């Protein structure tokens, strides 16, 4: 699988720029290599490929200065760097095309870049590092423009460890995330081509960053009232809406909101009685009270334990039935007791013993070896895809091979199998050195190779200074409630994939940490915001919005929630083989419980990490199954089902229609709707009537209003 993550990227840039006055011998790492990167020499398509090109191999985007020095100075009998006749060095004659060069003309003669290389060679091609890069600063880091086709200039400043600062704009590589939305000249002049928010990625040496450009979606500011503000979330959301001139839809109706928050917090439809009670409630804080009640419901535990199961990949495929029972059972306990998330994470990182008995041990059992262990841990707890750094430093982020193999080395002493034990020895080989990788906290520091480093890892992971842990957690919670992460995908936090609302993400993470990593607290905060409570119906001007929360997103019900909702409405439970009759889908522990409906709805099989996207929703096989399959049809035809019971009770059409509207859609049918169905359902006889009503119920179960949380 090594090769699976070799990531090859191309950054194309030309070298222009006039010559400037010469200074002391240029620094190899911080001046010479950026010239090569900027000229495109070390991209994956050129000399940066794993085996190089045309005999010259450079490290991808200059991540390995030692290798580059070796290639340039010592290979090819020193012809690449000709100290006796610097101008004749291949390093200069090839890219300027004085000699044939397959890669074409990359460097103008007598440009600043050319002279920099020449000066370095003239000075004897010194390799001693004079300074190391510490950080990049982009000015501005965010820019709002009044209209498209306006320009602004980005300045990139490098801060070095020795305290020096330098304008490196002309050496930086600029890549728009969306070339149709932004254009950037090699000198850092940005033109915005599309309305909305877009991102420019900036790279210099191993550091990357980004600049956000924004042009209002609508020319004029919305005329309606300013959107409501319930808590700190709304400050951030409203600020962006204001900048984008996006009008915010009003608060959703009571019954819509009740349905939404039930589905989000407990994965279960409200009963008609619960909706009625809520609507009749006159308390000013009745929504907050409702949230409180839901947080205490047993279905809350089912629903969130199921979601943990998807994230932690709880499947008997890997863990056996006993492992699933132990792990899921432990997760349920934590959710029920509201164990602070930092403690939960620590226990999973540190647990040892028999996975069939000790629940949290199974976190480590998901991974078959130290490297996949490192990848799993970083995906779950750091929200980071570390895989790229297996073969080379991550080209879009700060992660290095030392980080990747160093994190893996922390898990090298674990025995793998049903039981996870700490052994005396165990190593991970660093592919670059061929030596044992040194245990390392990623992006942080090396650890003493003796003993067990997992405690240090657990402390760092959940420590106050860790920038990833809390953000990743709150981003997942935000996605579960709002339908989209502030960072998407939720496991791809990196500096070049910024949040739509970075300050909000920070604020939520801070709030989460300050409240002891209390998941219920953050759920309270999010549901209390005006952003959460908006209607999904659009206003003129916010119809296309899908990421700034001008209106609520319409989301397909998650597969298990959908199955339970159908059972609830029809009054016929889904039967899962080998499990007690009353088992709901959200209470399932194992993804391998056979269920055609869940498969077609696109449940996560938990063999790999799953995005929250359920691929089955709206697919043709699912649609065919709804028309012809057993899932809905059998339930509707079931004589013990709700419809046939109501018919048995000799209820009128009107009562039956209203009852199903309340059950499925959590609202009363309007007068128009009642009149409509009265006309459509008029039947010659009781047999025909039964069929008409079955067909009505079938239609209701397929209505978008039922299948979605809106």
């Amino acid at each position, binding site marked *: 699988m*090594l*090769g*699976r*993550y*070799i*990531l*090859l990227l*191309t950054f194309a840039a030309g070298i222009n720029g006039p010559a400037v006055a010469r200074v002391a011998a240029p620094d190899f790492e911080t001046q010479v290599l950026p010239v090569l990167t900027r000229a495109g020499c070390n991209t*994956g*398509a050129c000399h940066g*490929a794993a*085996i190089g*090109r045309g005999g010259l191999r450079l490290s991808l985007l200059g991540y390995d200065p030692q290798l580059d020095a070796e290639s340039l100075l010592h290979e090819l009998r020193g012809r690449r760097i000709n100290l006796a006749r610097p101008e004749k060095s291949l390093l200069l004659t090839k890219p300027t095309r004085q000699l044939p060069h397959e890669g074409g003309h990359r460097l103008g003669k007598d440009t600043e870049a050319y002279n920099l290389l020449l000066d370095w060679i003239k000075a004897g091609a010194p390799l001693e590092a004079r300074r190391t890069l510490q950080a990049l600063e982009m000015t501005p880091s965010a820019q709002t423009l009044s209209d498209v086709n306006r320009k602004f200039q980005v300045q990139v400043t490098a801060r070095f460890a020795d305290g020096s600062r330098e304008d490196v704009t002309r050496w930086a590589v600029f890549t728009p*995330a*969306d070339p*149709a*939305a932004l254009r950037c000249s090699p000198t850092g002049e940005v033109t915005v081509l*599309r309305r909305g928010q877009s991102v420019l990625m900036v790279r210099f040496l191993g550091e990357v960053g980004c600049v956000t450009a924004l042009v209002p979606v609508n020319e004029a500011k919305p005329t309606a009232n300013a959107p409501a503000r319930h808590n700190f979330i709304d400050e951030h959301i409203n600020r962006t809406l204001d900048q984008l001139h996006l009008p915010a839809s009003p608060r959703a109706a009571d019954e*819509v909101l009740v349905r939404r928050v039930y589905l989000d917090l407990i994965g279960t439809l409200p009963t008609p009685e619960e909706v009625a009670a809520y609507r009749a409630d006159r308390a000013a804080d009745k929504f907050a009270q409702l949230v409180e009640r839901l947080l205490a419901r047993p279905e809350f535990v089912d629903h969130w334990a199921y979601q943990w199961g998807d994230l932690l990949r709880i499947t008997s495929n890997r863990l056996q039935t006993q492992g699933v029972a132990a792990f899921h059972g432990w997760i349920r306990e934590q959710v029920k007791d509201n164990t602070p998330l930092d403690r939960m994470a620590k226990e999973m990182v540190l647990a040892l013993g028999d996975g069939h008995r000790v629940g949290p041990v199974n976190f480590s059992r998901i991974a078959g070896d130290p490297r996949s262990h490192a990848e799993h841990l970083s995906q779950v707890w750091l929200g980071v895809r570390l895989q790229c750094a297996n073969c080379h430093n991550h080209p879009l982020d700060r992660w290095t091979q030392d980080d990747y193999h160093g994190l893996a080395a922390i898990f090298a002493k674990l025995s793998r199998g049903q039981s996870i034990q700490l052994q005396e020895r165990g190593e991970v080989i660093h592919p670059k050195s061929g030596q044992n990788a040194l245990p390392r906290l990623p992006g942080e520091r090396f650890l003493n190779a003796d003993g067990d480093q997992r405690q240090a890892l657990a402390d760092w992971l959940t420590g106050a200074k860790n920038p990833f842990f809390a953000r990743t957690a709150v981003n997942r919670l935000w996605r579960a409630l709002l339908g989209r992460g502030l960072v998407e995908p939720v496991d791809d936090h990196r500096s070049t994939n910024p949040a739509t609302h970075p300050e909000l993400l920070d604020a939520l993470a801070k709030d989460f940490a300050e409240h002891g990593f209390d998941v219920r607290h953050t759920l309270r905060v999010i549901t209390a915001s005006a952003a959460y409570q908006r209607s*999904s*119906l659009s206003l003129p001007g916010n*119809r*296309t919005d*899908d990421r700034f929360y001008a209106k609520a997103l*319409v989301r*397909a019900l998650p597969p298990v929630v959908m199955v339970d909702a159908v059972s609830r409405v029809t009054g016929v439970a889904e039967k899962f083989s080998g499990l007690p009759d009353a088992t709901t889908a959200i209470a399932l522990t194992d993804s391998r419980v056979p269920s055609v409906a869940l498969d077609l709805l696109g449940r996560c099989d938990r063999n790999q990490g799953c995005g929250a996207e359920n691929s089955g929703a*709206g*697919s*043709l*096989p*699912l*649609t*065919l*199954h709804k*028309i*012809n*399959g057993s899932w809905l*049809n059998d339930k509707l*035809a079931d004589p013990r089902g709700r419809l046939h019971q109501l018919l048995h009770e000799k209820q009128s059409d009107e009562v039956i229609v209203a009852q199903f509207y309340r059950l499925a*859609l959590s*609202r009363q049918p309007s007068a*128009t*709707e009642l009149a*409509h169905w009265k006309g*459509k359902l008029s039947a010659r006889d009781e*047999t*025909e009537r039964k*069929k*008409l009503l079955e*067909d009505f119920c*079938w*239609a*209701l179960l*397929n*209505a*978008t*209003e039922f*299948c*979605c949380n*809106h």
Partner: protein
Amino acid sequence: MPRCDGVTRREFLRVGGLSALGLGLSDALRLRANEKAKLPNCILLWLDGGPSHLDTFDLKPDAPAEVRGPFKPMQTKVPGIDICEYFPRLAPHTDKTCIVRSLTSELGEHNFGSTYLLTGYKPSPVIQYPSYGAVVAHTRGGKPLLPPYIAVPTPSVQEGNGYLPVANRPFAVTGDPSKPGFQVRDLEAPGELPVHRLERRREFLADIDRIGKQIEENGVRQDRDAQFEQAYRLVFSPAAKKAFDLSAEKPELRQRYGMQKLGQSCLLARRLVEAGCPFVTVTDPTWDTHQQIFRTLKEGYVGGSNGKIPQLDTALSALLEDLDQRGLLQETLVLVMGEFGRTPKLNTAGGRDHWPRAFSILLAGGGVRGGQVVGKSDARGESPADHAVSPTDLARTVYTLLGIDPDREFHTSDGRPIQVVSGGNVIQECLQNGGKS
């Protein structure tokens, strides 16, 4: 079992209820609508994982042992076109094929490479591009009885609809067509609901969302409606359903395709194309040969004789022969490719890793000029030595062959215009009439 209230759906259709549904004879004829329009259909054999160019269509007998491996080149029907010796059944058909040996890409990771090869676009963080089949489905329009894009048995993730509406997603038949009793799930109602009730349900469903006004009539709702429409067209058409029935084929022909998943998938693809589906993708996700590549390709298991190459040899040669004999080859583009090639140098596990810089693909039928090799790679198969072809060039060529203007613009859901292909050049040599079609 017919129900007491009247005819079953099957009977209903047999006694001529078609017109009552608005499905007249002309609709039945629409099964062959694409033939009339003279636009070629396409069968894509997607060798997911990345087949080794050096061990299939671009052997390097003069390269060092660690590059060339043990397989030898073999002469084929067309002098000068040599391919791997384990393609004996394909060899007589090279007069129909066009092998391009100079594909080149920069993306050596599966998902990225697959996106590039299947869409003609490098992956973007802000937009998902539609795959070939989705674009074909989107442009063919009309209301075909068969879904316009079918995946046998299941598509790879990158074979999706991208920014195009969900209706252009591939219909996955799932399962294993080589298994006895294979059938597509839920094409028939077990309870034999009469057709008027299916129609009524459909009408009621439209009513609920329309009158309720709780969900806007865009996005989710439109997607849902399109899926139901397609599903009903399929359910109401016995002819369309018959297209999925492999048991209607003669046993000898089934044998000829090979009784494995790949062979029977190719046979099903031919049936579907014949019945009017404009794009079928057959996905074989087993080509990521990091270990023991020669055994995997030739033998399958130790001492076997049924590796990836023999299976592909049997299936692909049968498909070309069969299409040809039915007079369908001229109107069916056959495309065989994966997301990249494999490293010229063997790794320590006896496998080859990812190699996007030079690899081979094969085209046949559908307006392709057969009997030729286009482009070549260098002595070790590392880089294109002549006529480098990018996935974008390939996309421009494929769309040209399929009668879709590569410069045509589609719109994303938020109204952004995007070309079918951006940049690139048609590989003129691949076209029978030099691109004048």
